[in-house]
């Protein structure tokens, strides 16, 4: 085990996989500088700058993946994916099916997301739900360095298109990371970040930390909280969630993405369909409001799901007295 930041863990995963498999390569706007170490080690053929052209970056990855390479593309910020939706959704997601299985698309789409840096709604938009809603894709969002490395490696090894969204604010968070070059975090497996008996919090990426803080606070009130970090949005490990909810009877899903048709809605729906009778209270969501991510510091902080809101939601479910909290964020 070594301690490193989440960003460094992603870099290490890329490096190990590029060493392991000569078909792994990476391209995007500025990767020759942002991955200068990989450029030095693997050369300009395998680490390529591109023109400012997101659509062809993604399309090129699709064509290359179907033809023997395993490309990783850096799309910078999630909102820029709006230029690349055809290649990702219509080509990578559908052409295996349409062609009757003739092609596979082992590619990884990297993009940053997550509020906290004041760059506004055109640099920060949590759109993981779009890709979850689209057939043929996989989606992962790590909350810590170890998972970032393990998921990155699993994504590169997977034979399907994987969208990996990295929360900017987590990039410099340090963590213990496995040195085993074959350490992978399998896609589609959630992690019980904290075991507990009274209530289930489900989250992923940055808000996993919000949940852990809320769990800490609730622990002071003798409320024993289980926190599940989904890690993969698609495939979604509903089994781990159900197991927990069957034990606790209470569910709160927390994420930074907007509420409507988000991952929280999906988790609530599946829990309803499969564990309705074990629910002891109304499941709840704590999300950002359905507004563009503001850039002004105070507004951006208010936009984020708050520990206090999570605490209040749990207290309400358990019939405890609720401490009054600001209510701008729904």
């Amino acid at each position, binding site marked *: 085990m070594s301690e490193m930041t989440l960003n460094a863990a992603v870099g290490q995963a890329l490096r190990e996989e590029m060493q392991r498999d000569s078909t792994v390569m990476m391209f995007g706007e500025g990767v020759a500088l942002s991955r200068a170490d990989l450029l030095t080690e693997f050369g300009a053929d395998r680490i390529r700058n591109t023109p400012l052209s997101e659509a062809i970056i993604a399309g090129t990855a699709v064509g290359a993946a179907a*033809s023997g390479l395993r490309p990783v593309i850096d799309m910078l910020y999630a909102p820029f994916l709006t230029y690349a939706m055809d290649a990702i959704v219509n080509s990578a997601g559908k052409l295996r099916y349409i062609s*009757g299985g003739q092609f596979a698309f082992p590619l990884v789409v990297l993009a940053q997301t997550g509020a906290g840096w004041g760059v506004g709604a055109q640099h920060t938009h949590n759109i993981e739900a779009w890709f979850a809603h689209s057939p043929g894709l996989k989606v992962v969002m790590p909350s810590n360095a170890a998972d970032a490395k393990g998921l990155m490696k699993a994504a590169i090894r997977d034979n399907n298109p994987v969208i990996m969204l990295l929360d900017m604010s987590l990039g410099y968070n340090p963590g213990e990371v496995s040195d085993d070059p074959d350490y992978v975090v399998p896609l589609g497996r959630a992690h019980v970040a904290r075991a507990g008996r009274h209530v289930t919090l489900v989250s992923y990426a940055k808000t996993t930390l919000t949940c852990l803080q809320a769990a800490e606070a609730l622990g002071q009130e003798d409320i024993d909280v289980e926190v599940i970090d989904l890690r993969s949005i698609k495939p979604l490990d509903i089994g781990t969630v159900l197991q927990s909810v069957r034990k606790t009877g209470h569910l709160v899903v927390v994420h930074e993405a907007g509420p409507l048709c988000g991952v929280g809605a999906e988790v609530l729906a599946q829990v309803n369909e499969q564990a309705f009778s074990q629910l002891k209270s109304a499941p709840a969501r704590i999300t950002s409001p359905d507004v563009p991510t503001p850039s002004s510091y105070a507004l951006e902080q208010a936009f984020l799901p708050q520990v206090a809101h999570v605490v209040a939601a749990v207290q309400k479910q358990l019939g405890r007295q609720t401490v009054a909290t600001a209510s701008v964020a729904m």
Partner: protein
Amino acid sequence: MKSSAAEAVQLLEKMMLIRAYEEHLASLQASGHFPMTCSPQGQEASAVGVVSALDADDTILTNHRSAGHLLARGADPGRVMAEVMGKATGYCKGKSGSLHISAKELGVVLTSTIVGGELSMVTGVALAKKMLAEAGVVVCFFGDGAACEGIFHESLNLASVWQLPILYVCENNQWQAFVRRKETMAVEYIAPWGNSYAMANQTVNGNDVLAVQAATRHAVAHIKATGTPYLLETWTYRQRGHYSGDNMAHISASEQAPWLVLDPIAQCRQQLTADGTLTPALLADIETRVAAEIARASEFAHASPYPAAAELLTDVYA
């Protein structure tokens, strides 16, 4: 380099096969209960001229108007027709239908019916060829409409900057679905758009199969010699409507007439007859062979089963 006479007759036969295939589909469609298709009728010389100049290790990307490209490449018309009908024996197990037929075994890959889809993916196919040091070039067929999509600009620019072995073939058939090409651009020709990317380019008479073949050979030689891509525009005409449901009421006879005179098959037949290569007996032979092939294909396709219901859920993930 001119093709030999025998080779020219083979080109004619391929074009006639494509035409016969299209006419058969049109008759099935007219009688109802046959899926819609986008016919390449009138563009046979572009398909056959380009594809005949390729080697087995070259790769092709095409689009919604692909029947000519597939048949020129040697696809089984029975399996193409079966695919159009959504039958399990089609090249894509019936899961494509007519609009996005790929046949990896023939090197026809990643067909998309999103206009510009082929332009989006061809760079990756060529990048893999280059990095894996595989022989051959990658040919990307697209329409004049696709050339108006932003992805055209991005694709040609990247291909040029990365020096990818791509032959871009723009089949300029004067129509973009229900819009005249002239309504969509301020210039007449698309080939010179290559200049923005320092890409060699040429517009060729797309109704002259030998001219297209020669231009393709020239372009492929250029790609192999310089390692840089090439933009070839084949100037041609879509003789049928955008798709089989298009009654063409909006297209005047006076627009169509001159193009029908320039029909690629009629012109080729005339030439080969004039120079003595094509005798009536030889022509009759070809017609018989083509008719038999289409009859066999149609029988095969019609007799083929639909995919089993369980296929609904397969082929989503690898």
